[in-house]
């Protein structure tokens, strides 16, 4: 559970390494944790408010934030360092001296409607059986927790959500399905996620959301972003079918 009232002052802690000539990765640790996710998210915002010449974009992951930049712009910038990697690395290390206010009330949670009807929850029975629960208990547990988006990856808009209750954890399918519908909600190990596009996939599928998780016609095509807080809400088959703008 994410404590919404907690507010602390701490400092950033990371090491840097070059991913490529035009990307530097900041490593905040080596295990999945709320604290690290909070640091990554907060540093990402700090960097977007204090970017450097040549800065392009960032990619968040479980324990890393990767910063992409234009090498030639960094080269001709006033940043200090023997190489472009050093110039950017020095800049980021300087920026990390800033202490940050960890305020977890900034973002309102996002509620995602999911239809857990057997028509969509292909593996709901299996997940229940693995965990010695009833199907309704699985749904109840899945809709009770607060989740955090740790990472977007795999396909455009695919959000890896952490914070799932261990009682419904399930291994991946031994053989991935050749095609899953867009919106399929799945479980893999201790994670849950939503397939934004019709793609192959190996997660245990427990339901489907009527929301478009990825849409190239939106300014922000991905519905979820790294750092977002998410809850699931169970909807009926009728509600699913009547969902506007499907």
């Amino acid at each position, binding site marked *: 559970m994410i404590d919404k009232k907690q507010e602390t002052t701490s400092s950033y802690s990371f090491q840097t390494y070059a991913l490529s000539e035009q*990307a530097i990765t900041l490593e905040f640790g080596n295990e999945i944790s709320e604290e690290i996710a909070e640091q990554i998210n907060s540093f990402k915002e700090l960097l977007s408010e204090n970017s450097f010449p040549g800065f392009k974009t960032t990619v968040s*992951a479980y324990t890393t934030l990767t910063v992409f930049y234009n090498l030639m712009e960094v080269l001709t910038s006033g940043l200090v360092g023997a*190489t472009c990697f050093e110039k950017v690395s020095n800049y980021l290390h300087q920026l990390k001296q800033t202490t940050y206010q960890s305020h977890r009330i900034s973002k309102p949670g996002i509620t995602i409607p999911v239809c857990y009807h057997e028509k969509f929850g292909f593996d709901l029975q299996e997940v229940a059986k693995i965990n010695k629960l009833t199907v309704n208990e699985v749904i109840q547990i899945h809709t009770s927790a607060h989740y955090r988006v740790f990472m977007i990856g795999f396909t455009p808009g695919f959000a890896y959500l952490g914070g799932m209750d261990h009682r419904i954890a399930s291994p991946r399918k031994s053989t991935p399905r050749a095609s899953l519908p867009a919106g399929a909600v799945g479980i893999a190990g201790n994670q849950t996620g939503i397939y934004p596009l019709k793609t192959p996939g190996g997660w245990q599928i427990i339901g489907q959301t009527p929301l478009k998780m990825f849409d190239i016609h939106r300014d922000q095509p991905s519905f979820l972003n790294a750092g977002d807080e998410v809850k699931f809400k169970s909807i009926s088959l009728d509600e699913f079918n009547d969902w506007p703008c499907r």
Partner: protein
Amino acid sequence: MQIEMEICFYKAGIQSTIQDLGRYPYLSQGVPLSGAMDSLSARLANIAIGNSEELATIEFTYAAASFVAETDLLIAYGGEGVLLITGNLTLPPYRPLFLPKGTMVELQNNNKGARTYVAIAGGWNAPTILASKSTYLTAAFGGYHGRTFIAKDKLKNDKNWSDGTLKLFNQLQGKEPKFTKWGILAKSFLPDDNSIRVVPGREFSWFTSNSILHFVSSSYKIALNSNRMGLNLEGAAIERSKKEELLSTAVAPGTIQVTGNGNLVLLMTDCQTTGGYPRIAQVAAVDIPRCAQLKPGDNITFKYISQENAEQLYIEQALDINILKIAINDKLQ
């Protein structure tokens, strides 16, 4: 001022798509970079006809393709995959080519490379989707309706004409195919050495020293199931000394991952934005275009260089390309 041009595909080829230099701004949302696999050839083809280097090109994979000029055309092509021919005439690469309306252009295999880029005066016309005209086949968006070309597709040029492009057109225009006496010497941008230069990856120390030695001393074969997402490499399996699981983190084109069974995957431009396999190496950015020209069955060898060296190579190439642009600009004055 610009002139409308159009082609019609007669044979569409194995995988022909529109590609520019890709879409950076959406990496954070899991959208791959995409763009030309051999970005150097695509840039040089554009530069040759006075275009900006980032305009959309057609990326052809191998040969087996042909198109008809529905109007007069001013094009240039680059890459090592094919030679363009019309009738008995071989059209030289990296050079402005004028083709009169009705010309049939065929792509003839030369077995040297895999991909060819055709640029047209003003760039190819396609909607800009998520900051790029590149086709991303997996999610079926970008380029020409999010797909590869098929026979009878028609494609027009765009309106981004430079003064130099117009001058070239006027200079070459006529009733016969014609090209300039000058061209770009693309070889001057590539090293003589065949090895692909790589920088040690973050998880370099996770592999046995024998495996690392293998990696740089033996050759790997490009597997048949290679594509725009990545090249699968066949050869000595890489063994791990550290069994730890890697938490998924950002990867980039050029990242060489080692899969669970010790196989190597060299990620290319349509690769996922994150990955969970340990990374033995990162291909120097200047050598990624060379990887794009490898065909299944080709062999590849690797050579380690330092991060500083890779950066220096990138800077030198960027400066060389700038000099080239100035030189061509002068010619088109």
